[in-house]
């Protein structure tokens, strides 16, 4: 393995406050701090129960939310949290529900074109080329560009989500529970697609999930969160063979059943 990690996260955290009023004091919830390193082509899984804060971490990493502290490095460069351009060209996110992440009133082709419009100076033909490529990559046809989101099935929509994430050639892709809503046969298809893409494009994945079996199949390393904190981290094999934290043990047990 290379010595310099591609993607480094240092002590990022997010603090939520409940709205307080005259009668109630606000409750403070802190997520993090979270730190980890990832090398090119690796997959990190963040696992935890619902409400453990894993999704928040995912959103922080993708730049969807601003953290209350911490740093992010891509290679040697520190990423400026407010530099959305940098984020979207390097770190992309695939949403949990792709259908909802698509603008219902705009054709697929246009939606795929928009990130290119925002971030690149490609001309019309080049953009079209990129769109067709991306669609083909995820196993769709260029004709699908003229369709509206509601005409696609869940699996297809998920593929469009992936295409959209990849169209800007990112290095890191954050997959936020993106596989959960699919039925098993589709899920297998998408997983294979993701692995294939990782292979060909040398992508780095951060997989956020609560499905242990999936995590084991896909990831190289794992991080387990509970109530906003990391309770255990390590390579897949280590953690799965010798879970230390009682919560981890419980989590893994649930898989066995």
């Amino acid at each position, binding site marked *: 393995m290379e010595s310099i990690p591609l993607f480094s996260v240092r002590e990022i955290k997010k603090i939520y406050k409940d709205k307080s009023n005259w009668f109630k004091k606000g409750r403070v919830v802190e997520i993090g701090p979270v730190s980890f390193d990832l090398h090119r082509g690796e997959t990190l899984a963040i696992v935890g129960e619902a409400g453990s804060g894993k999704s928040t971490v995912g959103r922080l990493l*993708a*730049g*969807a939310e601003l953290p209350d502290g911490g740093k992010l490095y891509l290679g040697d460069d520190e990423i400026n949290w407010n530099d*959305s*351009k940098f*984020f*979207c*060209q390097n770190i*992309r*996110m695939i*949403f*949990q*529900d792709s259908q*909802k*992440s*698509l*603008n*219902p*009133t*705009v*054709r697929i082709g246009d939606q795929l074109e*928009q*990130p290119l*419009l*925002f*971030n690149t100076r490609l001309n019309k033909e080049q953009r079209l080329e990129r769109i067709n490529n991306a669609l083909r990559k995820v196993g769709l046809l260029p004709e699908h560009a003229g369709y*509206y989101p*509601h*005409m696609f099935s869940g699996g297809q929509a998920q593929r469009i989500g992936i295409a*959209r994430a990849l169209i800007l050639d990112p290095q890191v892709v954050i997959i936020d529970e993106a596989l959960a809503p699919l039925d098993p046969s589709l899920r297998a298809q998408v997983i294979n697609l993701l692995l294939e893409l990782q292979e060909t494009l040398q992508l780095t994945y951060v997989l956020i999930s609560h499905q242990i079996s999936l995590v084991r199949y896909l990831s190289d390393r794992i991080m387990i969160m509970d109530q906003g904190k990391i309770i255990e981290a390590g390579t897949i094999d280590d953690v799965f063979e010798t879970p230390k934290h009682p919560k981890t043990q419980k989590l893994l047990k649930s898989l066995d059943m």
Partner: protein
Amino acid sequence: MAKFRFFSSPSNYSPLKQLWSLFERNHFALVAFWIFIVMFILSIFGPLLAPYSPYEQHPEALLVPPAWALDGQINYLFGTDALGRDILSRVLSGISYSFGLAIIAVVLALTIGLFIGTLAGFSKGIRASALNHILDIALIMPSLLIAIVIVAILGPGIANTFWAVVLAMLPQFIHHVRTEVADLLNKDFVIAYRLDGANKFQLFKYALIPNLVEGLVIFGAMAISSAILDIVVLGFIGIGAQTPEPELGTMIADSIDVFYLSPWTVMLPGLLLFVCILTVNIVGDGLRRALKERRLQ
């Protein structure tokens, strides 16, 4: 919903086309829609079609009944009023005043409301809550009352009426846009746009506008009827358009004096007004229902 359909599935249309095909199935609404279009065209070209000027007095033909009445004259199709003005010509101009002006007012208020409402939807904190309070207050006031207040300040007249109606409708549009925008901003696809690197303007243009337009059109269609009513009622109680302007409400108020003698001077403008409002309401209602149906699918 695996419903069996024995016609070609409209689910393959674009959302707008889908809406239209649902709307089309409502025949009433469709008829109303065509009447609406006719009215709209009349409100632009009506004055050109009018046989006389709406102000022209024909002293030799006072209070002539409509042409279909026994002693009506064919050259005054809808009859004449107490000053011998041709009611058809007045009514044709009246459509542009009462109906056309209402549409312009709604479009203008919508445009302003869209911008202010979007800004409001983006803003947070003290500014947002202050705006919320002001809006809440303004929303309780019915638009006609606000319009009356504004006319009371500005003084009567058709121009003031127009601005009063625009201003009176503004709070509800701002409110509508603001809630919609706030709603949309929490949607995944808007976050996706942000992650795509869209700036605020691009977000507005590509993500918000396409999703707002439909709702605004329907909301606007419903608002037209109240805008018409506001203009007409202000005219009728004498603080809107002033005589001799051929605004329908003013016209009716003008003719009340001869109402018992020659009811058509009141009935015809009133009937037209009623048709205008009814078609707008049916169209708005039809659109709303179609939207609801589409959401169910």
